[in-house]
């Protein structure tokens, strides 16, 4: 009994010493799964009765869940096809925000309902970035007052609410009536559109800014700049670092632009009225 134990231990030791211990090379600190190779040459869009599909060569694009990819809007399908065409050697799925949003909306991996998302967004109102201002530093306070207050006012007018900013850490009080009014507006969007809305709010950390940019009050760049207002202010004193500040700014802009496009293309029928040519 003990003899077998000893031989087994010896064998284990021999095996472990025979495996050469590779020092991790400097280039690969952590091993991630390699992204899939680009296996197609051209991408195209198919128009069917149910909607628009994307083809990669002769294959139809599918969602990660295996469902066929199908969207209602033509420009959205074209944007996805363009995004797949823009991949170089590998398909970098983490940088295809429009496709990712479409996939999320089709698959709905968390099985969210409209009510879940509206509630999520409503809970966000009390922690909205633009409602938390800071009055210890004069310049910053002035900046926030000039840049954020008009948008809070616009929001209050547009949705007939009465959101108030706060100057300290206590969250602003949002009345039930205001919540109902915002919920009513959000409920008017479809389930797919709300996915885009949630993505925009998560990017900006602000419902006021997200509503403003989706309502075309401000551009995407401006919305991102406003959500990073304090960061931009501090950068003036501490310096701008390209690989952190610019990096995050570009990422936020790309994400927000994808969300805005997604929302608009999903409810564009009632927004774009084609002018009849005489």
């Amino acid at each position, binding site marked *: 009994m003990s003899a077998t134990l000893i031989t087994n231990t010896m064998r284990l030791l021999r095996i472990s010493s025979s495996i050469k211990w590779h020092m991790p090379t*400097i280039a690969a*600190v952590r091993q991630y799964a390699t992204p899939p190779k680009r296996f197609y040459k051209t991408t*195209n869009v198919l128009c069917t009765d149910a909607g628009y599909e994307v083809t990669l060569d002769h294959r139809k694009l599918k969602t990660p869940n295996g469902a066929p990819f199908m969207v209602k809007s*033509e420009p959205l399908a074209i944007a996805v096809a363009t995004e797949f065409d823009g991949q170089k050697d590998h398909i970098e799925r983490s940088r295809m925000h429009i496709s990712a949003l479409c996939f999320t909306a089709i698959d709905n991996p968390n099985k969210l309902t409209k009510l879940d998302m509206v509630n999520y967004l409503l809970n966000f109102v009390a922690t909205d970035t633009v409602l938390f201002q800071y009055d210890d530093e004069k310049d910053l306070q002035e900046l926030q007052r000039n840049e954020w207050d008009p948008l809070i006012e616009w929001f209050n007018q547009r949705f007939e609410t009465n959101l108030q900013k706060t100057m300290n850490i206590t969250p602003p009080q949002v009345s039930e009536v205001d919540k109902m009014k915002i919920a009513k507006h959000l409920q008017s969007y479809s389930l797919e559109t709300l996915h885009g809305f949630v993505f925009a709010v998560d990017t900006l950390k602000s419902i006021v800014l997200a509503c403003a940019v989706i309502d075309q009050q401000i551009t995407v*760049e401006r919305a991102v700049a406003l959500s990073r207002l304090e960061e931009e202010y501090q950068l003036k004193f501490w310096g701008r670092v390209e*690989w952190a500040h610019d*990096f995050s700014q570009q990422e936020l802009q790309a994400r927000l*632009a994808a969300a805005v496009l997604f929302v608009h293309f999903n409810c564009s029928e009632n927004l774009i009225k*084609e002018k009849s040519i005489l």
Partner: protein
Amino acid sequence: MAGTKVLRALLHELRQAAHDPGSIKNSLAARYILAQYKKFETTDQQLCKARNEAIFLGQTYLTYLSSLRKYNALYKDYHSRGERTVKETADLVGFKLPTDPK
């Protein structure tokens, strides 16, 4: 005119993003955008919500393409190679190594 500028910038970005930059004429997105421009051309001088919306969407798509391109460039420069050597780090922040000549 803002519209033309956005169109030129969009085509430029699409050319940079495309797999084969020569075939921009066959690109779906470029053809779609040009068709949209033709469609909304008639409402150039009028106060028209649809036109503003079309321009807004064009600008948004332009932001999307250019931000993604810049993001990828920054990622390639700074984040795609794992750990840097001491020399590279010193160069990045403008320091010299003790062994370097003054």
